[in-house]
C-alpha cells in the first residue's frame, strides 16, 4: 500500500519547523535562552517593510532556538516538562566582588595545626535519670555541667560547709566569661586583620598578630594623649606622671618670615572674615539672638 500520498497530505496541513537560508549557522547560548544570528540583515527589505521583515526574521530565529531547546534532555516536574539547560557560555559581570574568606579564629588555627576535625554532636541526648531525651545544652538541658547532681561529694581539703553547687555554678560562669572574652578577642583580631593585610586575609590566613597588637597599642596611646589634653587647662597644669606617655612627632610650626604676599594676605583675610563676617553677611543669627535676649 502506498502511503506517501497520505503522509504528504498530512504534512501539507502543518507549517514547517525547518528554517532555510541561513548561510552562517546560528549560534546558541542555551543557558541564557539566547540565539546569535550572525547573518547580515537584508538592507533593502529592512528599509521597505521594516516591521514585517523584523517579525519574519525573528520568527525564523525563534524557531531555530526552540528547535534546539526542545531537543534538550527533559524531566517531568510539578511545573510540567522542564528542559535541562547547559551552563551559559556568555559571561556576564558579577554584581559584587567574590566573598572574602573569614579570618580563622585562634582555635580554628590550632585545630588545623593539630589535625582536629569538627564532629557533629546530636542536639538531643538520652537522660537516664528521667528516661527521656533532653537537649544537650540550653533550656531544660540534661545535667548542666554537674550542677544538677543530687549529691556532691565534698572534695578533699575543702570546707564541708561550702556550697559545692554554688562552686560548680561559679566555675561554669567563669568558663562562659572566659569564652566570651576569647570571642571578643577573635572579633577584634578579625577586624584588625581586615584592615591590615589584604593579601593574607584573602588567603584565609591569620595576619601577623604582632602587627595587630602594635596597631591596637598605637590606637590606645593616641586615645590616652587626647584624654590628657582634655582638661580645662588643656593639660597644662596637670601633674606629670613618671614614665607617662609623651606626645611624639608633634612639632611647633612657625610661618616663614618672608613669604608670598598673596598667601599672607589670604591668611589674614581668612581671620578677618571669621571675625567680621564674610562679604558682609551676618555672623550672628539675628532671629536666634532676638529670641535669646527676649528670654532674658
Amino acid at each position: 500500500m502506498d502511503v506517501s500520498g497520505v503522509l504528504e497530505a498530512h504534512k501539507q496541513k502543518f507549517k514547517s519547523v525547518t528554517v532555510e537560508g541561513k548561510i552562517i549557522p546560528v549560534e546558541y547560548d542555551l543557558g541564557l535562552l539566547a540565539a546569535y544570528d550572525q547573518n547580515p540583515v537584508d538592507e533593502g527589505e529592512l528599509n521597505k517593510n521594516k516591521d514585517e521583515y523584523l517579525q519574519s526574521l525573528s520568527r525564523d530565529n525563534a524557531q531555530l532556538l526552540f528547535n534546539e531547546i526542545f531537543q534538550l534532555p527533559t524531566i517531568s516536574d510539578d511545573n510540567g516538562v522542564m528542559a535541562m539547560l547547559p551552563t551559559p557560555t556568555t559571561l556576564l559581570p558579577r554584581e559584587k566582588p567574590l566573598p572574602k574568606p573569614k579570618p580563622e579564629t585562634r582555635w580554628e588555627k590550632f585545630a588545623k595545626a593539630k589535625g582536629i576535625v569538627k564532629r557533629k554532636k546530636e542536639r538531643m541526648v538520652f537522660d537516664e535519670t528521667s528516661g527521656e531525651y533532653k537537649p544537650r545544652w540550653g533550656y531544660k538541658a540534661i545535667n548542666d555541667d554537674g550542677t544538677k547532681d543530687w549529691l556532691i561529694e565534698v572534695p578533699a581539703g575543702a570546707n564541708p560547709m561550702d556550697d559545692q553547687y554554688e562552686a560548680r555554678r561559679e566555675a561554669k560562669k567563669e568558663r562562659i566569661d572566659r569564652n566570651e572574652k576569647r570571642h571578643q578577642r577573635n572579633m577584634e583580631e578579625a577586624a584588625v586583620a581586615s584592615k591590615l593585610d589584604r593579601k593574607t586575609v584573602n588567603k584565609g590566613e591569620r595576619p601577623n598578630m604582632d602587627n595587630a597588637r602594635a596597631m591596637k597599642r598605637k590606637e590606645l596611646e593616641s586615645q590616652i594623649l587626647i584624654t590628657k589634653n582634655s582638661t580645662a587647662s588643656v593639660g597644662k597644669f596637670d601633674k606629670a606622671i613618671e614614665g607617662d606617655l609623651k606626645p611624639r612627632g608633634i612639632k611647633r610650626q612657625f610661618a616663614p618670615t618672608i613669604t608670598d604676599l598673596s598667601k599672607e594676605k589670604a591668611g589674614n583675610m581668612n581671620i578677618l572674615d571669621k571675625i567680621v563676617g564674610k562679604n558682609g553677611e551676618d555672623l550672628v543669627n539675628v532671629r536666634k539672638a532676638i529670641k535669646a535676649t527676649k528670654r532674658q
Partner: protein
Amino acid sequence: MLRTITPRNARVKRVLKNREAKTEENIKTAIFVRGSQTSQIVNNALADLYMLKKPHAINFTKKNEIHPFEDQSNLQFFSQKNDASLFVVGTHSKKRPHTLTFARMFDHQLLDMIEVSIQHGIPMKDIKTPKSAIGMKPCFLFNGDVWEQNPHYIMFKSMLLDFYHGQTVDKVALAGLEYVISVTAGPLTSEGKPGKIYLRTYTIQLKRSGVKLPRIELVEMGPSLDMTFGRIMEAKPDVWKQSMRVPKELKPKKKKNVSKDEMGDTIGRIHLGRQDFDKIQTRKMKGLKKRTSEDKDEGSSDKKQRVDDSDDDE
C-alpha cells in the same frame, strides 16, 4: 554617604546578610529613573522596560537631577540604598533627544554605561495584543553581523542579557517560555559608525507541526524601539577583570582523561593496571598446562592440585 546600619533585629540582620557578597548572586535589581527632563517617548519606554524587568525592578516616579555621564554620585547612592546594580536613566534634551542610558554597577561603583537615543517607539499599551505574564524568563535573539564588531554593540548586547536573563537556572519549564526579546542590528553607516538597532518583543505561540518540534509563531507584544547609539563609557580593565571572576565553587569541575575531538565525540582514556600474563585465561589445552610446580619445587603442590581439580570438572 550612607550611614552604616547595625542590625537591631533579626529581620534587618537577614536583609543585610542577603545583601552581602556571595558566590551565587541574587538576581540583579534594576532602577528605572527619570532625569530632570523627559519626553513622553522616554517615559513610555521606561515604563515598558520596567514592566519587562518586574519584579526585580524599582521604578522611580519622581524626576531626579541626574546626568550619568557627568556625575555618577547619584547612581552610586541609589545603588547602595536599594541594593541595585542596574540602571536605566531616561532623559530628553535638545542636544540628545529621547535618551535612555543603560548603566551597570559593580560593588556599588559604576562599571559601564551606554546611551541610546530612541528614534521611534511604540509603547506596549498601544499594541493591542495579549502580553506575557510578569516575571517570565525571556528568550533572546540577536540578529545581524555586527554584534561582535563594535564596542557599542558588544556592550549593548551584554547589557540587555544582564538586564533580563534573570537567575541562571539549570532547568526551565517549556510552557513558561512566553516571550522573546529580539534585537536586530541594522547595517553600519557609510562612515563605519554604528547604525540603528531595532528592539522588538514578541509573545510566542507554539503550534502543532505534525512532528515533535512545535511550529513557532510570534505576535508583537511591545515595546518596539528603534534606537541609535550615543555616548559610551567602557569599564576600566582591572575592574572589569575583577567583575568577571568566577568563584571556584561555580567553575565546572575538570573531568580527568575525558576530552572531545573535533567531531564532538567524547574520547576517554582508561588506565589499566599491568596485565599479569600468568593469570590470563586462554583456551585450555592439555599441552599448554603449567607443569612447572611439579617439576621444579614441591612447595606449591596444592596449587597444582587445584588446577587438576578444575580440569576434572570439565
